[in-house]
């Protein structure tokens, strides 16, 4: 708790507004550090079990050491948000939240043809989209 307060204070102290220059338009830089946050001593990097889970969810092939390092950097970068006070703030899901969603009558406006829909498939089976016959779930140890 004390750690959070000190960190918050540090962040806010990082930039200052020079009130005396309100008349002059040449400003002092709001000294904001957009580099990486200071190393959080508890952060050890992501567990290999989680990496395996992510591989399974992402289905983009195996993650290299470089990919894992990139992910760790990304998470460290994202951790800068953890200190922001969002008490009583609702999530903003869409900027159109105050505009009712447009609806239309439930009538068919058939514009698609079967030919168009199938046209870009690399492989068809008798006019059907087709996947390989077996769904073998990738287990943690399987190597791609």
């Amino acid at each position, binding site marked *: 708790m004390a750690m959070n307060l000190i960190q918050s204070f540090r962040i806010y102290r990082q930039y200052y507004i020079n009130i005396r220059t309100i008349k002059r338009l040449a400003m002092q830089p709001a000294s904001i550090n957009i580099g990486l946050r200071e190393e959080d001593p508890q952060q050890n990097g992501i567990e290999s079990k989680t990496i395996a889970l992510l591989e399974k969810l992402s289905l983009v092939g195996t993650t290299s050491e470089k990919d894992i390092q990139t992910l760790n950097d990304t998470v460290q970068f994202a951790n800068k948000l953890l200190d922001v006070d*969002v008490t009583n703030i609702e999530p903003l899901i869409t900027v159109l939240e105050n505009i009712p969603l447009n609806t239309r009558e439930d009538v068919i406006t058939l514009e698609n043809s079967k030919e168009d*829909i199938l046209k870009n*498939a690399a492989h068809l089976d008798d006019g059907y989209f087709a996947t*390989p016959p077996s769904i073998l779930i990738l287990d943690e140890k399987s190597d*791609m």
Partner: protein
Amino acid sequence: MDKVLYGNIKMTSRLLVEGSINTIDLINLSLKKAVENKKYNPFITVTQSEALQHSEDSCKRYISKGAKSELDGIPIAIKDNFCTRNIRTTCASKMLENFIPTYNATVCQRLFDAGAVLIGKTNLDQFAMGSGTVDSIYGPTKNVWIGNLKEGFYISGGSSGGSAVAVATGTCFAAIGSDTGGSTRNPASYCGVVGLKPTYGLVSRLGLIPLVNSMDVPGILTRTVDDCVIVLNTIAGFDPKDSTSVNRPFKKIRLPPANKLSIKNLKIGIPLEYHCDSLSSEVLDTWNDIAQLLEKEGAIVKKVSMPHTQYSIVCYSILNQCEVSSNMARYDGIEFGFRANEESSTEKLYAETRKIGFNEVVRNRIIAGNYFLLSRNYDKYFTKAMKVRRLIANDFDNVWNEVQMLLTPTTLGDAPLYKDFISKNNRDQCALQDYCTQPVNMAGVPAVSIPIKLSQKGLPLSLQLIGRNFSEPMLLALAKYIENIVQFPHFVNKF
């Protein structure tokens, strides 16, 4: 004769109506220019036969005095993440290398209905992920300013770099880009052209291959503000096929001539927090100069504060990666796109297809997004980011109580050299490049980048104007006012 390409749309349209030039000659000139400028690599596909066919149709219309609009016969370019019927649309990826859409994106359809002639599909960072147009399977797009360097080339900016270069070189009068975190304004800034990001919901996204559904918008790149207005008038307005398109009547914008514009008592804000460490002194000076100029001309210029600006880039980064991991799930090789030769199981097929079909940047964003969306992380990162997004949007709402528009930098400096740009990884680079542009996407408000002057190196320096939702008329009026005063030395003026 080339010179006609370097003018503006209104002038060219008049010449076409008068018969001083005809569309077929105009389009042939444009296609020739596309070949001359191949060294900058702005186009993935040049639609030569389609362009010639459409130029003939347009020519016939002019002869029978039946031109469809001011855009009839005008050469344009479209970023290769907009679907164009029967013309391959690749997103600069192996995944969609051979994808041929069966429909036109609404933006494209509206332009074609107005008679505009497509010269080609332009280069971009793969799936619009990047700010340099360097991560494309077709190679990087090079900035037109200062060629033949020993140290290599300057980047065009991204991800709509190809569109910016197509316009800057005079190959086209206008180009369509997309803007999720600055992808239209960033290359506009580096290439010295006008780049507009319209209000979210003003322009249809139907057919724009999605990156971040809650932030993507089609963008416009032109050499002049007037040309930008002509294009916006053609593409803006409700589209029932896009559920995020706002159903409100769009009134075509009519800007008076520049010398009739007045900015007296217009309230313009300078957000302090946009002045960060990495801002170059040249951009700072330019920003200062224009602020003082506007004040001299009668505007009320004041400092404002947007306290959550420093969190915007992190927040954007998280939301971007989360939406990406969801949007990219459609690419499985089954219904369309690249399909790997892997038949042992469905999951192996998907994994192999996506490993080959996507580049490293895309794959890493998918993985990161999935990390933040894990149940254990969902509230900590994704929900948190959505809450911080509201704080950022509120910052904008609050300033509109004090001022009508904001004046900020677009990019933190002039265009970097390619070798310097790639020395940082994609995410770190985006954090720097997108600093002033992405808060706008978080709030959904409109913004325009206008070229002001050249840097000491001889590269364009631009500034950004931001307005409240649907304030495009005022925004573009102020942009035109500034454009008229600064008289930026366009690249095409050299010829």
